[in-house]
C-alpha cells in the first residue's frame, strides 16, 4: 500500500542531536516554494548530501517551473549522510522529502538528478531507504514513477534497470509534459506499464523497459538497445532543448539555505552551451547550441536575485562565461552597482587564451587568490589532438600579466592518458609548470618570490559517450601509475606541487561511462556490499567494487580499457544529443592527425549536425572576440 502523504518530522527530530550537521535535515529555509495542498506531487532528489545538492541549478530551475504549475507541488530530497541513514534504518524511519517531511514513497513522481557517473550506488541507497524497489520491473502500482535526468544521462544504460523513464536533455518544458501526462494516466487509472508506454511518446523520453538489449558478433558484453517489437518507442531518443533560452527566467534560485555549502551564493546562468570543441568534453557536445542571455537581462536578474535572497556573492555561471560576447560589460555594470556593499561577483574560471587582468580583477571583489587554468595537455601537439586551442604563448602571456598584477598562486589542470599521449607529453606538463615558476622569478619582486606557487592537478582521461573520443579505451592503471611517477620525477622546482586524481576512481568512472546495461547488476552488487557515496574519497573503495565485479563475472579493467571499433554498435547510440556520427568520426580522424577545428560561434559552421537535427541554432548577442 502506498503510505499516506503526511508530515513525519517528529520521527527524525529525536535523531537530530545525534548526527553531524543537523541543519541538513531541518528545511524551513527562506524561499521555499512547495505547496501544502496539491493534486500531484513530485519529489526531486539530488543523490548526495544537502550541501552538495542544494546549489544545483538544474533542480532549482525545475523546482521553480513545477511549483509554478497549477495543482502540482514539487519538493526536494537529498540523501541523508551515512550517520543519519544508519540511524533512520535502525529507527525504521523511511526516506523523507525535505519540505513536507513526507515519505518519498508517497509521491506521484520521484525525480532523480543524474549529476555524474559516481552517484550510481546512491540511487539504490535512496530507493532502499524510501522502501521503493530498486528495479523498475519490481515496482508496483503504489510506487512512485521514478524519472531521471541531468548532465550525465547520455549513456543511461548502466542505470537503465533502476529508472522508469529518463528525460534526455534540458528539462524546463519536458518535465511539465511528463508530469501532466502522468497525472492524466493516474487519474484514468491506467496500469503502470501503460503509463510508461505513454511517456515514451513524449519527445526526449527514454523508457528502458520498452527496449531490448541486442548483441551482434562484436558488441558483447555490452550490446546495444533496440525498441521492443510493437512498442512504438523511438529508435533514437533525441535530447530536448529550451530553444528560446533567453525567454526563460534567468533567476532560477529561490531557496536560501542555512547550512554552509560548497557554492553558497546566487548563481545566474548567463549562457548555455560551449562550441570550443574540445574533443574530450562531453558537455561541449551535449549542451549545444550556444545561447546567450543579454547583459541587460543578467544585470536585472542579479539585482532582483540579491534582493530576494540576501546573498553576498553572485556567480555568473556557464560552461565558459568569458566567452559571452558581453562579458566585460556585464562585469563592469555589476561592479559599479555593487560598490560598497561587500557583495562580490565571481565567474567559474577563465580561459588562458582570453585571460584578461582587468576582468580577473573585476571578480571576487578584487581578491587575488589562486588563478586556475585548464591547460589539459603538456605539448602543443597533444593540445591540437584534443582541440584545446591554447598555446604556450597564451600561458606565457596570461601568467606574466597575472604575476605582474599581483597574483602569486596558479593552479594548472591537466589530463593524463589522452589519445596518442607519449612520455614527452608527460614531461611537457612538468616543463610547463617549471616554466611558470621561471616566469615568476623574472617578474615577481625578490622579496615576494617565496609566496609563488604552482600546483599541477592531473586527472585520468575518461572517454565519454557522444564525443570524438568515445571509441577510445582508458589508459590501463599500471601505465597511469608509471606516468604519474614520470611526471613527479620530471618536475625541477620545489614550488611546483603535483596532485593527481585517484586512478581507482577514474577506473570506475570509465566503467560506468562506457559500459552497457550489463553493468547494472554490478552497481547493485556493489551497493549490497556497502558501496555508497562513492564520489567521496573517504567512502570510495575499489576493493568493494572489485569483489562485486568478481561476483558478477565482470572484468573492470576490460570494460574501462577495451576500445570500440569505429562503425561498431555502441551501448549509448539510442540516446542522442543530436550530434552526427559522421562528425564524431571526422573529428576523431582529425584528432589523430593533430588537426584543430574552430569554434562555430567565431567561425563558420563545423557541421556537428546538432542544429539541423534538433531544429535549433546558436544565439549570440554580439560578435564574439
Amino acid at each position: 500500500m502506498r503510505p499516506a502523504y503526511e508530515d513525519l518530522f517528529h520521527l527524525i527530530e529525536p535523531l537530530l542531536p545525534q548526527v553531524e550537521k543537523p541543519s541538513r535535515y531541518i528545511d524551513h529555509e527562506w524561499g521555499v516554494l512547495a505547496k501544502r495542498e496539491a493534486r500531484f506531487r513530485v519529489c526531486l532528489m539530488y543523490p548526495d548530501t544537502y550541501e552538495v545538492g542544494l546549489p544545483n541549478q538544474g533542480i532549482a530551475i525545475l523546482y521553480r517551473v513545477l511549483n509554478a504549475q497549477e495543482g502540482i507541488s514539487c519538493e526536494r530530497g537529498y540523501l541523508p549522510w551515512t550517520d543519519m541513514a544508519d540511524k533512520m534504518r535502525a529507527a525504521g524511519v523511511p526516506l523523507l522529502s525535505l519540505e513536507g517531511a513526507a515519505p518519498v514513497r508517497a509521491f506521484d513522481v520521484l525525480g532523480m538528478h543524474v549529476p555524474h557517473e559516481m552517484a550510481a550506488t546512491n540511487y539504490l541507497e535512496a530507493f532502499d531507504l524510501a522502501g521503493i524497489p530498486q528495479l523498475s520491473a519490481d515496482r508496483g502500482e503504489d510506487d512512485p514513477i521514478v524519472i531521471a535526468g541531468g548532465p550525465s544521462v547520455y549513456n543511461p544504460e548502466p542505470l537503465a534497470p533502476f529508472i522508469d523513464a529518463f528525460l534526455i536533455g534540458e528539462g524546463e518544458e519536458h518535465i511539465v509534459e511528463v508530469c501532466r501526462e502522468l497525472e492524466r494516466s493516474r487519474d484514468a487509472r491506467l496500469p503502470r506499464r501503460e503509463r510508461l508506454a505513454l511517456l515514451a511518446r513524449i519527445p526526449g523520453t527514454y523508457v528502458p523497459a520498452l527496449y531490448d538489449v541486442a548483441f551482434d558478433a562484436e558488441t558483447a558484453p555490452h550490446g546495444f538497445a533496440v525498441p521492443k517489437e510493437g512498442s512504438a518507442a523511438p529508435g533514437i531518443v533525441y535530447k530536448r532543448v529550451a530553444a528560446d533560452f533567453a525567454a526563460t527566467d534567468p533567476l532560477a534560485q529561490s531557496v536560501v539555505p542555512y547550512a554552509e555549502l560548497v557554492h553558497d551564493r546566487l548563481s545566474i546562468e548567463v549562457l548555455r552551451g560551449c562550441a570550443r570543441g574540445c574533443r574530450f568534453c562531453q558537455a561541449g557536445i551535449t549542451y549545444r547550441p550556444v545561447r546567450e542571455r543579454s547583459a541587460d537581462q543578467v544585470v536585472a536578474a542579479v539585482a532582483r536575485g540579491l534582493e530576494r535572497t540576501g546573498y553576498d556573492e553572485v556567480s555568473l555561471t556557464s560552461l565558459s562565461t568569458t566567452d559571452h560576447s558581453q562579458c566585460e560589460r556585464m562585469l563592469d555594470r555589476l561592479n559599479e552597482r555593487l560598490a560598497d556593499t561587500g557583495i562580490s561577483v565571481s565567474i567559474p574560471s577563465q580561459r588562458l587564451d582570453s585571460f584578461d587582468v582587468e576582468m580577473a580583477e573585476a571578480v571576487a571583489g578584487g581578491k587575488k587568490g589562486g588563478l586556475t587554468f585548464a591547460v589539459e595537455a603538456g605539448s602543443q601537439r597533444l593540445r591540437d589532438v584534443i582541440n584545446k586551442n591554447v598555446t604556450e604563448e597564451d600561458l606565457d602571456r596570461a601568467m606574466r600579466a597575472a604575476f605582474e598584477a599581483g597574483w602569486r598562486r596558479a593552479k594548472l589542470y591537466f589530463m593524463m592518458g589522452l589519445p596518442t599521449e607519449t612520455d614527452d607529453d608527460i614531461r611537457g606538463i612538468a616543463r610547463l609548470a617549471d616554466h611558470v615558476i621561471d616566469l615568476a622569478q623574472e617578474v615577481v619582486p625578490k622579496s615576494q618570490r617565496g609566496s609563488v606557487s604552482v600546483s599541477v592537478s592531473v586527472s585520468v582521461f575518461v572517454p565519454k559517450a557522444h564525443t570524438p573520443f568515445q571509441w577510445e579505451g582508458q589508459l590501463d592503471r599500471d601505465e597511469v601509475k608509471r606516468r604519474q611517477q614520470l611526471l613527479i620525477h620530471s618536475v625541477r622546482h620545489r614550488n611546483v606541487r603535483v596532485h593527481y586524481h585517484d586512478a581507482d576512481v577514474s577506473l570506475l568512472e570509465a566503467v560506468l561511462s562506457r559500459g552497457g546495461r550489463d553493468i547494472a547488476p554490478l552497481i547493485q552488487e556493489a551497493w549490497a556490499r556497502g558501496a555508497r557515496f562513492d564520489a567521496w574519497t573517504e567512502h570510495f573503495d575499489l576493493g568493494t567494487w572489485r569483489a562485486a565485479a568478481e561476483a558478477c563475472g565482470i572484468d573492470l579493467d576490460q570494460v574501462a580499457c577495451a576500445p570500440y571499433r569505429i562503425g561498431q554498435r555502441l551501448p549509448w547510440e539510442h540516446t542522442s544529443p543530436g550530434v552526427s556520427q559522421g562528425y564524431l568520426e571526422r573529428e576523431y580522424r582529425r584528432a589523430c592527425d593533430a588537426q584543430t577545428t574552430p569554434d562555430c560561434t567565431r567561425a563558420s559552421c563545423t557541421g556537428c549536425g546538432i542544429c539541423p537535427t534538433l531544429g535549433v541554432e546558436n544565439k549570440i548577442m554580439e560578435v564574439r572576440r
Partner: protein
Amino acid sequence: MNEENLFRLRVEYVKQGRLRYLGHLELIHTVERIVRRAQLPYAVTQGFSPHMKIAFSSALPVGTASDCEWYDVFLTAYVPAPRALEALAAASPADLAPRRAGYVDRRAAALTAALTRARYRAVLALEEGAPSDEGRARDALVALCAADGIPYLRGKKTKTMSLARTLVSAELVARDALTWELALDTRSSAEGALRPEVLIRAWEKALAAANGGAAPRDAVAAVLAEPLAVAPYGIFAHCEIARISQNIEDKRGILVEPLPLGA
C-alpha cells in the same frame, strides 16, 4: 566611511523550533542575509575583504533555544527603529523573528563582553520506566554545584568547565512526577561560560549511579573523577534547554537590560 557617522542598531531575536539546530556560523550567515534582504543601509568594513559590520552575542549550543539573542549592526544612515524592526521581521523566518530593535551608543562594549549574565531553563522529561527520586536528585545537584569544575570530553579532547567561575545558582523544581525543571543562573567571562548541557549530563550520570545504590555525594565524586562524555545516561528521555535571559551586570552587581527601554 567615517566611523562617527555610523548608527549602532541593537536587535533582539529568537532562535527556536527547528532553527535551534543551526550552528553559530550558520546562524551568523543567515542573519547577515536577513539584514541584506531587509535592505537596511548596513556599513561595510574597509580593507582587503569587505564585510558587513555586525556583531553577535555569544554562541548558543546547537539544539538550545532562546528568546533573547542579540546582534548589533552598524548602519550608515538612521532608520527609525520601528521601521528597521518591521523590515527585519519581513525578511526573517518565523523561528528567527526579531523582537526588539533600538539604537545604542556607538562606543558601547561589544555584546560578547557586555552580556556576562545568562539564565537558562531546562525542561527534563524523566524516562517513564524508572523515575528518579527527587530528593536524591537534589542532593546530587547540590554536591555537583559545589565542585570547582567538570572535566568533559569534547571530541577527543578533555576540557574542564569551571563551575566556581560560571555558576551563580541552580534550582530544581519538580513540575510533576515525570517532569523536572532546572533553572540555571550563570556568569561568563573571557575565560569561558557555563555549558548547561555539560552540567545536566554530569548530573544525570551521577543520578544513574545514585539510582544504582551509591550515595549521591559519592556518585558525584565518581563522575568528576573522569572526563564526561556528553551523551544520554538513561535518566532523562528528553532535555529541552532554553536561554531565557541575557543581561549586562554593572559594577554594583545589578543586572541591566541590553537595550534600555525607550532606546
